[in-house]
């Protein structure tokens, strides 16, 4: 059995703090430009100054500040997308799994449709239709998530349906709705939570990919994905612009996953199948 992943928890906590206390922590505004100070390296490199600990980007914006505010945006995106997409998935999964029959068939075909339809393209279409922005991004990423959530949750529910307490509830004459809410839902919440943690990474990566394709959060608002994407052209002469946010993404996703795995082993060995 794994021991508690303290390091991961530490990392996650730090990033949460960054997100919540951004205005207090950030030395500068994330969007103020000082064009004269553009592309300064981090302080430990020659040419770097203690003024900008992690250096500056092409607009002379402080990377540290952008990183801190970026944490906020990125986590908000993750939060919303997981609530929306995960929520819908949870709902559909439970309904389909529990009611079964024609409802299940139809919902599951819908899920299949979602899998055939290139989510990233959907995101693109949305972005060009509704214009780039938080809303678009969240919807797009939710569309990317709900189907897989629905599939897995449904599987869980199918298993639960066979359990005595459900049968008992039926015997006691509980309404379907009541059973779903009071018996099924609480029992799939573990699975749900684990899925959520394991998908935070997916969301953040998706956000990055969409920024790369020009369908993410529009500049100048900082998000980690956007920062990596903006800096990609400069890996040669200013690697820090994209590497630093890149590392931030990686370490967060890494921590969240390790935490998620641990949670999974703790809560729900059954979920390993998925």
């Amino acid at each position, binding site marked *: 059995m794994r021991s508690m992943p303290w390091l991961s928890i530490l990392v996650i906590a730090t990033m949460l703090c960054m997100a919540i206390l951004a205005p207090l922590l950030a030395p500068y505004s994330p969007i103020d430009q000082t064009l004269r100070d553009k592309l300064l390296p981090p302080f430990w490199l020659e040419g770097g100054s203690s003024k900008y600990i992690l250096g500056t980007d092409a607009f002379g914006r402080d990377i540290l500040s952008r990183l801190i505010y970026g944490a906020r945006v990125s986590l908000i995106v993750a939060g919303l997308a997981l609530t929306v997409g995960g929520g819908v998935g949870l709902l559909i999964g439970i309904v389909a799994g529990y009611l079964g029959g024609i409802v299940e068939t139809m919902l599951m075909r819908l899920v299949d449709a979602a*899998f055939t339809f290139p989510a990233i393209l959907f995101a693109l279409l949305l972005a060009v239709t509704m214009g780039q922005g938080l809303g678009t991004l969240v919807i797009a990423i939710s569309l990317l998530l709900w189907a897989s959530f629905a599939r897995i949750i449904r599987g869980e529910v199918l298993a639960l349906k066979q359990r005595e307490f459900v049968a008992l509830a039926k015997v006691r004459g509980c309404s379907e709705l009541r059973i779903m809410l009071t018996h099924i839902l609480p029992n799939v919440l573990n699975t749900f939570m684990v899925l959520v943690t394991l998908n935070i*990474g997916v969301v953040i*990566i998706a956000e990055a*990919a969409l920024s790369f*394709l020009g369908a993410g959060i529009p500049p100048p608002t900082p998000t980690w994905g956007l920062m*990596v994407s903006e800096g990609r052209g400069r890996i040669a002469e200013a690697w820090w612009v994209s590497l630093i946010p890149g590392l931030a993404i990686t370490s967060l996703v*890494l921590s969240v*996953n390790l935490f998620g795995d641990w949670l999974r082993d703790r809560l729900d060995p059954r979920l390993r199948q*998925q």
Partner: protein
Amino acid sequence: MGGFIARRLLQGLVLLVLVATVVFFLGRLTGNPVDLMLPEDATAEDRAHLIKALGLDGSLITQYRAFIGNALKGDLGTSLRMRQPAVDVFLSRLPNTLVLIPWALLLAMLVGIPLGVVAALNRGRILDRTAGTIAVLGIATPSFWLGIVLIFVFSVELGWLPSGRMGGPEHFVLPVITLGTFLTAGFMRLTRSSMLDVLESEYVKLARIKGLSESVVIWKHCLRNALIPVLTLWGVFVGNLITGAIVTETVFAWPGVGRLTYEAVIYRDFPLLQAVIILKAILILTINLVVDILYAYVDPRIRLS
């Protein structure tokens, strides 16, 4: 079996119509190819002319009816930009993507599955942890960034490999790695977890009781079972590859369908866009069907009905 396939095909058809409709209207919502084809200083008259020339006049409904009608006849229209049948355009690009995918899958399987097995066998030990961490790294690195870094390191700095574009074997290395990394990680994690379940199972105990050698127990009795859930994800994975190749194809200037789709969106090439989505959907549906059939073969308990 036959009945199963027939039913699946029927469902597939319904699904296609659904997808087609969504693309049609969603596409139309995103604006108008004419504006993108005209220079920014074109006159209203030039617009009118071009709209007519492209056959974009007439109400949405009429256009939609025409589209569905032709689609059922197997004609998915003509690319607005390239003035060629959209299907031809797609088919001319498809092979380029399809030559990439098997290698990515191969990489993922050759690296991911054994790594997963090894991790499972050493559960909780350092080997497991490292493998797991590597896997998450694979998942946690944005593929476009990975691609660009790879180019920078292996072509610009070391000069070992070409920066991209299709070509001889050496041209495949970086794109395949970029495309395969995520997959490898996915396979590895999945194999590990299902392997863990299998290792605890009674029939593995029995196999050991028989006194079978450890390698037979693991690579024959365990793996075959462990691969079942892996296989289920195959369909999804390959689907993702076909569509998700957009980023890789962009970075490595790989003239595949992912890139084509992206351009179809950006330039509002509606017929092409519709064709691409529909054909991809068909492709993915077929793959899923095949996977299910394979599935039934690997796992005798599954009956196709």
